[in-house]
């Protein structure tokens, strides 16, 4: 190791204390980051945003609901040569489930994040200069309004016009609030024939008594206030509230409750499906919905949901092999950028995210914005405790190394700032501010120390262990190892990950940990027909929408991901056109086109289902020109990303100086482009 005279690590405290500037607070404070918005307030926010940024945002009505509310569509693009409707576009869809309000906040935050960051933040400026972002912040305004008009229920449905009663919901038994707490939850009805008992590990939850283990059932469980004797009444299919995210054709469940009378039966879903097909520049989709394929990539093999009508074996049921790596990589980047992990639920039957991939052929991502934290990660929100056995580098690490033969104990604290990591290396020698990047399993940080140069820390994380190397600039490098602070003796997983724990167990543990009022303890109440019962259970929508204090942080993380994803959209450009004279007025024309972006112009699914048209190049018929090879128009099914290229070649005969127009058509990767070739 080469020595720098007069300087060693022990001198660090004397010469450094650099503080990183606080991360720029780009997103202006707005209602979208503070509270949930009903239709009127959301409309005001949308209009205010559009008028503040009229050069960047245009707003129109995608469709009007049965109850007369506008489904707003925001188009974000900076003025430029190319029409926003022909630039590769990202579509962001929120609130198909009316009670999933957090999606609307995240979608509006994205609009604000982009508009206020334009001209300030390079990656946002370049995004809006070259791309279009369509945002549908509230697909189901009629359903969302129920959160305000019927706050005591957890209802994702759109009230259906054909439903004859209960305000268009026709939920035969919505239940009643017996306990007087303003919520309709669950009730335990004491019943010697009941099969349920409180779960010994978590008595707030119930489980089946096991008669073979000498357990005796104590109660039945029902929606609070209903009369179970009347709850089984016949409901004609298609005449109840509709979950818009069950109304799309892929793996649609015919003749089931809350799916609508048939596929795409609602004005909202029809408008969205048509928009997907008509707006042929849409190249990728993010849906904020209860489903997730970002916190964890979708599985390679899945079983279609029960109740899907049998179809031919040619109906795809899994993400195709060529497409999986894209889903895996983007999921990794999502976790790196947002710091969010968790085990989201897969898109279920008839959902929009599934339709977008399986029947429109587009890359389609979905995230609930907020959900149960996964192993060691954060479900979302500032203060979500790291822990567990993840390999996320975020956390505090006790590390040991040795510098020039001297053992050195230090503490490495890594935090996430948006897409970046920052850290502090604290040692008896002093403190170094670091910044860098990382993801589950790996990180790289560095910081500048005056007179010493750059200190770098790169490590590999395996559960609670870390190892890596410390780069000391001119002094060379040293290996280090460490463990997660506080992990000693913490061999037991947190309660939220206990074996056998159901999702509800984990929700309770998470609520307890975060101090969220998400569950009402069982309390006695009087039922008019059943007598004494106990009322309690999860608070309506507590597992759907986070406390409002968490909105800003969650929305910001998702906006940063959306910006990253926007930069990955495919775009085919004409890289080079060469004309090679072959004599006798015969020329070979070669046009090479390139997709320098991450995503391919078509996923394998888009090619297979033929919804995405091929990449087409053509010479336009020109007086005096003969295409000797006959192939005036040529097509290739797709062009890969990361420098994927294709060369179109024509042999033509025409007089020197002939000007031949050429067109390139790549519908979701740049639209129609033209150039003119002049023969030498």
């Amino acid at each position: 190791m080469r020595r720098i005279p007069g300087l060693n690590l022990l001198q660090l405290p004397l010469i450094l204390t650099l503080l990183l500037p606080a991360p720029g607070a780009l997103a202006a404070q707005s209602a979208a980051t503070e509270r949930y918005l009903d239709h009127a307030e959301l409309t005001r926010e949308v209009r205010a945003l559009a008028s503040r940024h009229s050069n960047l945002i245009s707003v129109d009505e995608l469709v009007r609901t049965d109850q007369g509310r506008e489904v707003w569509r925001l188009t974000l693009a900076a003025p430029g040569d190319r029409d926003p409707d022909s630039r590769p576009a990202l579509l962001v869809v929120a609130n198909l489930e009316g009670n999933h309000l957090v999606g609307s906040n995240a979608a509006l935050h994205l609009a604000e994040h982009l508009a206020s960051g334009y001209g300030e933040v390079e990656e946002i400026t370049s995004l809006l200069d070259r791309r279009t972002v369509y945002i549908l912040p509230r697909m189901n305004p009629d359903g969302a309004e129920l959160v305000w008009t019927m706050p005591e229920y957890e209802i994702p449905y759109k009230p259906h016009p054909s439903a004859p009663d209960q305000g268009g919901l026709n939920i035969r038994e919505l239940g009643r609030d017996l306990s007087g707490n303003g919520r309709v939850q669950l009730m335990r009805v004491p019943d010697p024939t009941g099969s349920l008992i409180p779960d010994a590990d978590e008595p707030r939850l119930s489980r089946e008594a096991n008669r073979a283990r000498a357990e005796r059932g104590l109660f039945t469980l029902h929606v609070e206030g209903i009369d179970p004797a009347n709850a089984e009444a016949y409901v004609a299919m298609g005449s109840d509230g509709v979950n818009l995210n069950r109304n799309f054709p892929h793996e649609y469940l015919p003749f089931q409750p809350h799916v609508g009378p048939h596929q795409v039966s609602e004005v909202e879903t029809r408008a969205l499906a048509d928009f997907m097909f008509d707006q042929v520049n849409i190249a990728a989709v993010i849906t904020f919905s209860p489903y997730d394929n970002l916190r964890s990539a979708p599985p390679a093999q899945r079983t279609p949901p029960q109740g899907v009508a049998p179809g031919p074996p040619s109906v795809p049921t899994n993400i195709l092999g060529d497409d999986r790596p894209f889903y895996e990589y983007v999921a990794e980047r999502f976790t790196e950028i947002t710091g969010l992990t968790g085990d989201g639920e897969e898109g279920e039957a008839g959902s929009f995210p599934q339709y977008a991939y399986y029947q429109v052929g587009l890359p389609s991502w979905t995230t609930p914005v907020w959900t149960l934290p996964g192993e060691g990660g954060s479900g979302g929100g500032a203060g979500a405790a790291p822990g567990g056995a993840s390999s996320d580098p975020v956390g505090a690490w006790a590390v040991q190394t040795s510098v020039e033969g001297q053992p050195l104990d230090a503490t490495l604290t890594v935090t996430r700032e948006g897409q970046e990591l920052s850290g502090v290396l604290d040692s008896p020698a002093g403190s170094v501010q670091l910044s860098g990047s990382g993801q589950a399993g790996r990180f790289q940080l560095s910081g500048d120390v005056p007179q010493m140069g750059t200190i770098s820390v790169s490590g590999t994380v395996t559960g609670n262990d870390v190892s890596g190397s410390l780069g000391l600039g001119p002094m060379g490098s040293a290996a280090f190892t460490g463990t997660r602070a506080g992990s000693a003796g913490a061999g037991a997983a947190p309660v939220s990950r206990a074996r056998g724990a159901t999702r509800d167990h984990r929700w309770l543990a998470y609520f307890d940990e975060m101090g969220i009022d998400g569950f009402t303890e069982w309390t006695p109440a009087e039922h008019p027909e059943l007598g004494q019962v106990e009322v309690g259970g999860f608070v309506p929508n507590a597992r759907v929408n986070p406390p409002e204090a968490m909105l800003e942080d969650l929305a910001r993380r998702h906006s940063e991901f959306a910006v990253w994803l926007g930069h990955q959209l495919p775009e085919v450009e004409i890289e080079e056109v060469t004309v090679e004279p072959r004599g006798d007025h015969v020329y070979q024309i070669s046009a090479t086109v390139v997709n320098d972006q991450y995503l391919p112009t078509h996923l394998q699914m888009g090619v297979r289902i033929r919804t995405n048209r091929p990449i087409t190049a053509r010479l336009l018929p020109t007086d005096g020109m003969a295409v000797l090879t006959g192939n005036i128009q040529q097509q290739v099914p797709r062009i890969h990303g990361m420098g994927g290229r294709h060369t179109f070649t024509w042999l033509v005969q025409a007089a020197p100086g002939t000007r031949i127009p050429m067109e390139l058509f790549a519908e979701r990767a740049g639209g129609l482009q033209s150039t003119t070739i002049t023969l030498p």
Partner: protein
Amino acid sequence: MTSIRAIRRHPVRSSFLTGFMILILAALAAPLAAQPFSQPDREPQVNIRWDRYHSYDEMTEILERMVATWPQFLTLESIGQSWEGRDIWLVTINNPETGSHDEKAAFFAEASIHGNEVQATEVNLYLIWFLMENYDHLPKVRELVDQRTFYILPLLNPDAREVFFTRGGPSRTGNRPFDVDGDGRANEDPPEDLTGNREILQMRKYVPGEGTHIESPVDPRLMIPAPPGTRGDYIMLGSEGTDLDGDGRRNEDGFGGYDMNRDFPVGWQPSHIQGGAYRYPFSNPETRAMGEFLKSRPNVAATQSWHNFGGMILRGPGSQYYRGTGNYPARDLRAFDYLGERGELILPYYRYWTIWADLYTVYGGTLDWAYDALGAVGFTNELWSLEQLYQGHWQDDGPVPNEMRQLFFNDRVGMGAWFHDWEEYDHPELGRVEIGGWSKWFNRTTPPFMLQELLHRNTMFALFHADEMPLLEFDEPRVERIAGNTFRVTARIRNHRAIPSRLQVAEMNQVGDPDLFRISGGNLTVQAGGFTSGELGNELRPVERNPQEIHVADGVMGHSDVSVTWIVSGSGTATIEYSSMKGGVHRTSVQLR
């Protein structure tokens, strides 16, 4: 139940007064209403040529004329517009004297979802006309018009019919711009009628010794492949047309390119599996108009679609994957078979077939949706086959060679009308070619002299189908005192027709409201109730809950009955009601004494 559509007055039991009124009306109309069917020496009230095909505008005029002639029975409405903005007309046939249209079991007939299948529209025009012309003369016609509602949609795809008439060529599709070749441009190079004879014919080029085809030695009009090892004298160049967009290919992107009979929700599959499917079910304005109309008519108990050709009475399911069994549930099949097997007798040369098993697989066709989602019994007739032209007389070893069969009929029955001889044409790209071949008015299309028979027989099949919609009637109920004020009440309702009052599939899918048997009365207490059982019919299988209102899961099957027994206490009059979405609401009463 909140949404039972009640038939307040049962047609069969229509009051004496109503019957009298009808007689008066009929008597008044009689001097004017000559009719040509039972008295074929007379002129009809509305003169329509049944030996020719009618354009959209002519059809509209005919509909308006019929509505003006029979305003008491016919109403005309537009249920939507085609892609090109033509009104999609729907005629309701109903006698308001016997009840509102939505209170009767209804028959729905749709035609020409494929615009080139031109007979279809004519059948629906004939059906309206036949019922109206003969209402005053044929008792069965009067019974049908009085008891039933008919919703007749004569032309679902008017845009394509217009293309067929004015230009010809395949026009099964609608006329929405559709980018067949995926090059970013729609409909940029369709086939063209180069010779101006309103036909899209075939092109061939004479290239002696360098081609693929030769003239048949049997008849030079027939082109056959050159025998192996030899060169032909002609090359076949496909449909009439030029390279309109200069891309070196002819006719590669013509009008439309989708199939609206793949646009219905049940069993729907996207276009990579079911060619012709559009974006999602009901994603075309024409099919959506039809779908919305039918969703608002839960009284529709039977449906009919008219197509061409091949001579078939088709039933679903459209695919072998339907319900995992590839067949409809057994109880419902009885009604289909009853109608289909007799339909083969009404329609010589037609075969009663199941779509996927006997023809080909169809995902998202009209029939499966009508059956599964409407709970209606539906057929698709493939109108016309050349067997009807040959009348079974063709002999494979007869005096004329087999391959001459169609040309023989063209020459000797059509007087040459159906084949265009090859004629020279100077093609801008191909040089001297010849254009000719079979007319659009042959093969799929019925020749004029046989058209009326086709319209009549298929109308008769439709009216048979309509007549077999459920027709319910109570037997006289029985009362038996058990002790004191406790009685046993037994009520039986009969279905006089073949189609059940509620299909098994409707119950399986929970579509519409179930059939219900109810008993009510001033001071009635229902102690128990259930379906009548026991050899002597004096026992019951009690229902578990709410015996006052018994849910009859499969309705009253065809030519069958359902009997329920209640043990009640009380006195006075008990009203017994049977309500059925397709079969109407019927009441009877008993005295508890």
